[in-house]
């Protein structure tokens, strides 16, 4: 049996435009469960006034809630009327930076008075300068990134990269709130905003090198300010040249041209060591001779993909190619007969008052389980009557997952099992090229239960710096069904969301700094999406050298 929402990758792929707008929503506030959070903000051990400390709910179902408080003269803050939920808490003082290893996750379960959520800050450093091209023109809205290498109090070396900053209309940038460390600053054009076509220069490091190893290092100490960190960029004027890409699409078996196939381009973006595929909106349709062409393509790495369509009986592997300084004219795509899976979606509910389901707002996605699908996920709408057809499938095992339209919530539903001819399909549905499988039944379950709880020790709260992991599973007999709770905060509070009705076992694992381990177990029943808050009490074993 396959519990819970199958794959979260689909989710992240589908979050489209909705995230560009601030979204809020609010459930009715339960007055009984309001919490208070308080603590102190210090710089060099002294309380600082006027610092805003904010609590923001993490993005569950697109809802963001925030609460804030301001520190008084002694650096103390207090935030009241916070409903239960999972939050990030942090001082909103970007000119300061946090000292390391401070837990910022906060899970508030019941009406609590949470105290001593303290923050120690250091005044951050500043780096500012101007970015100009070789012709002395300012570069406007170029992305500024920095890499910092530092050694923290515990002697651990770390490095991180940040690229939130941009130059303004004068080419000037200003990085602030920088933690002490050794910095390399570089400039690039933000490819994502530029349709992958306007990066007219390679990322350039201060003062004027494209080689990261030759970048000058700026050593930031607490509160230091470096001005005049100007970067000169060499514009590459050839990169605005564009080329034509042509090819043919033929039947992989008989070599005949395949007309009327919609093709699209993907561009491989490689920036700061991150590689990702950018879906370009450059369609082309093969003609009677199976020929297709894409015009005005800038130099870069690309792939041609056959657009999956419900009516298309063929599919093809992604064909990679590179555009350098001339037209590409010899691409050949070979098609294979695609498989399809059709059937019906059925909601099984044990809930007394199940909410109505709108199938037309849900989609099914199929993805090969071999793990290197090349990003090919086939999607299909679910019709109002629950029927669906997934086309363009690849030979092999294909697993299904459920998604909301446009990355929206799945109405609390997830796939509980998939049946083909009455047989449960573990590990996906096996399809062969050209095979059309019908009568597949996809069972959905409401999975809007939430299990909240806290891990404590027999002597009370958890010791400082204890590492806590919470696991839960459907049946103690099947360890494969166990998975980790995504969030456990420093106080041992945890939350498990999207749980279908059922009986579960919760296991808490506490690891102390000296490697002692303590475990506690508890069974919970989720019914109608509800479960009482639970407390798991671990017994800390006596440490070495501790007398009982």
């Amino acid at each position, binding site marked *: 049996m396959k519990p819970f929402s199958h794959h979260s990758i689909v989710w992240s792929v589908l979050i489209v435009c909705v995230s560009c707008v601030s979204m*809020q929503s609010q459930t009715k506030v339960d007055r009984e469960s309001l919490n208070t959070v308080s603590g102190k903000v210090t710089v060099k051990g002294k309380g600082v006034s006027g610092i805003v400390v904010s609590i923001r709910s993490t993005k569950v*179902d697109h809802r963001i809630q925030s609460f804030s408080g301001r520190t008084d003269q002694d650096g103390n803050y207090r935030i009241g009327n916070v409903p239960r939920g999972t939050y990030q808490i942090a001082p909103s003082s970007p000119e300061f930076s946090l000292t390391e290893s401070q837990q910022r996750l906060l899970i508030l379960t019941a009406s609590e008075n949470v105290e001593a959520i303290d923050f120690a800050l250091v005044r951050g450093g500043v780096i500012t300068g101007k970015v100009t091209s070789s012709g002395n023109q300012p570069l*406007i*809205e170029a992305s500024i990134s920095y890499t910092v290498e530092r050694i923290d109090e515990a002697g651990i070396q770390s490095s991180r990269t940040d690229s939130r900053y941009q130059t303004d209309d004068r080419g000037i940038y200003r990085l*602030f709130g920088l933690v002490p460390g050794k910095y390399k600053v570089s400039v690039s054009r933000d490819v994502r905003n*530029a349709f992958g076509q306007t990066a*007219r220069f390679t990322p350039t490091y201060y003062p004027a090198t494209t080689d990261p190893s030759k970048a000058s290092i700026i050593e930031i100490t607490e509160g230091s300010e470096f001005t005049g960190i100007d970067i000169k960029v060499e514009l590459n004027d050839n990169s605005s040249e564009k080329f034509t890409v042509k090819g043919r699409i033929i039947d992989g078996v008989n070599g005949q041209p395949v007309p009327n196939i919609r093709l699209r381009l993907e561009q491989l973006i490689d920036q700061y060591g991150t590689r990702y595929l950018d879906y370009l909106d450059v369609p082309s349709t093969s003609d009677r001779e199976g020929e297709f062409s894409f015009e*005005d393509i800038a130099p870069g790495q690309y792939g041609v993909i056959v657009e999956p369509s419900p009516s298309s009986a063929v599919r093809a592997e992604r064909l990679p190619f590179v555009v350098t300084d001339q037209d590409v004219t010899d691409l050949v795509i070979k098609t294979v007969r695609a498989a399809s899976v059709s059937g019906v979606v059925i909601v099984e509910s044990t809930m007394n008052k199940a909410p109505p389901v709108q199938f037309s707002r849900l989609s099914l996605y199929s993805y090969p389980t071999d793990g290197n699908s090349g990003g090919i996920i086939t999607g299909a709408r679910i019709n109002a009557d629950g029927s669906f057809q997934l086309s363009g499938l690849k030979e092999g095992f294909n697993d299904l997952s459920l998604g909301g339209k446009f990355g929206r919530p799945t109405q609390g539903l997830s796939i509980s099992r998939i049946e083909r001819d009455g047989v449960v399909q573990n590990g996906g549905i096996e399809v062969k090229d050209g095979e059309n499988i019908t009568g597949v039944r996809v069972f959905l379950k409401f999975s809007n239960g939430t299990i909240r709880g806290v891990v404590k020790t027999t002597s009370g709260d958890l010791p400082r710096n204890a590492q806590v992991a919470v696991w839960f599973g459907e049946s103690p007999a099947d360890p494969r069904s166990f998975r980790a709770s995504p969030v456990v905060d420093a106080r041992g509070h945890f939350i498990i969301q999207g749980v279908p009705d059922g009986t579960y076992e919760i296991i808490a694992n506490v690891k102390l700094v000296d490697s002692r381990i303590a475990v506690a177990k508890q069974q919970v029943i989720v019914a109608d999406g509800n479960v009482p808050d639970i407390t798991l009490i671990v017994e800390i074993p006596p440490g070495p050298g501790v007398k009982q």
Partner: protein
Amino acid sequence: MKLVYSLLGLAVSVLALTTSVVTAQGTRPDELEESTAAVKKGVITGRVINESGQPLPDAQVTVRAYGSGEYPHNTSTDRDGNFRVSGLRPVLYYATASLPAYAAAPRDPDNTQATSYRIGDTITLVMFKGGVITGSVKSITGEPVVGVQVRAQMIRDGSGQRSRYGATTRERLTDDRGIYRIYGLPTGTYLVFAGGPGYLGANGAYENDAPTYSPSSLRGNAAEISVRAGEETRDVDIRYRSEVGHTIRGTAAAHNASNTPEAWVILTSTLDGGSQLGDSVYQPLGFEGFSFSGLADGSYDLTAESFHANGEIMISEPKRVNVRGTDISDVELITKPLANISGRVVLEESKAAECKGKKRTLLTEILVSAWHNEKEAAQDQPQFVWGLGGPSFPNLQGDVALRNLAAGQYQIIARQFAKYWYLDSITLPAAAATRPTKPGEPNRPQDAVSNWTNLKAGDRLSGLIVKVAGGAASLRGQITTAEDATLPGRSYVYLVPAEREKSQDVLRFLSAPVSPDKTIALHNIPPGRYFIIVQPALDEVRPTLTKLRLPNETETRARLRREAEAAKTEIEFKPCQNVTDYQLPFPPVETANRSPQREK
């Protein structure tokens, strides 16, 4: 910096039509029977330049079909400012360009060049370096406020006109010194404020605060900041008040469903007039409602909007909410369907011999729009609703539907761009129009251009007929001024129908600006007899032709007719006739020779 329209939600894409259609001159090859290579390949090319004609490289250009949910075609300009998109279908497109720190040139009402393009067209988009507002945000005690969002909102444009819906707002965060810098602003008058619910939402520290307007006030006493393109307005400082704003909570429900729908809720402030800076929140399906926080005292309208897979939009009546020192909860919004008008576009070929072999207009290149009556609509009601029902083009069979029209009065208008074709008439069954049919009067089709059509929520009107006919004529010529006469600035040449039976036909009223070198050009003229006259432009802001044809401008047309009749200059156009080298004396010879006595 992100460019954010004053209203968010999916309406943005529609609003783009009215806001960032940059001044553009489209050039078209003359109408040949044979298609050019560019037409065959579905290509639109163009250039992005600054106001002095210099090419602008690296500008992002978006070419998008009107009235369709299709993906836009995106590209960028090369080092010579040129761009090209290909693979376009033969429908009508609009084009927008964006370049950091630059703003689109405002639409000149005297520029009659089309802002819709056909494949094969070459477009020039003009942008100029925008203005800058910079200053600091400090607390009451003088400490810099770091990481707060500062937003500039245009309230009046460069010509002093109140911003229409969809006016741009731009925002930036303050740095570690509390300094902000907002650039790329078009010329106009702005309000600048810090804090409040925002789109950058940096860290949530200030989003529950009521916005503080420069210098340190609520909206009512905000300073008006004037900005000129290419210039910097400095020291626009804000003393940040740190006042917690209020919250409005409520639920959006559909009129025909029991559960709460997925909806966008849009909040507009009545104070902000036509520009109506708004905030938009999402209510997920099945959840228990929406909330807005960080609101200052004032009056707001809340409107819920939900989108359907078939492209239809449901919308609630705007609900007026007054925030006075406390939070407000339990606001209920009920969404209902908007109105639709459907019908057909019919083509009528000209039988005249002169029109043989001339290129036909394409059905899909005819754009039909419904324009709401601005005078009748309340100025403080949410204005974004007028942008929901964008223009639409017919399918290959000529079927056309104008969807998502908010309740109000509309004029139906259509545009087509084939040289030898003209818009002949637009009619609706009489019952659909404003004027009620008298008993016994036959239910004749009514002119939907010269009459307003009243639409209520959920109306489904059918029987719209847009008739586009072949045989259009054109006129090119010159104004010849008498020795002692000077042509007033912003002069227009007007054609007024001379035939009695056409005297009320607003589509037979035509106008075009007289260019500085006194040349005139008129296209797509229905054949027939006209009076021709030179008169000043009709409006400061709107295109003169738009105003000339409005249903409630009967007096304007009557006056024009009286003066044109008095001037007695007539001209006749035969089907497909291209009149060139036409000389039009100014002032009209007849009038100039007339003595004052004779006039009595």
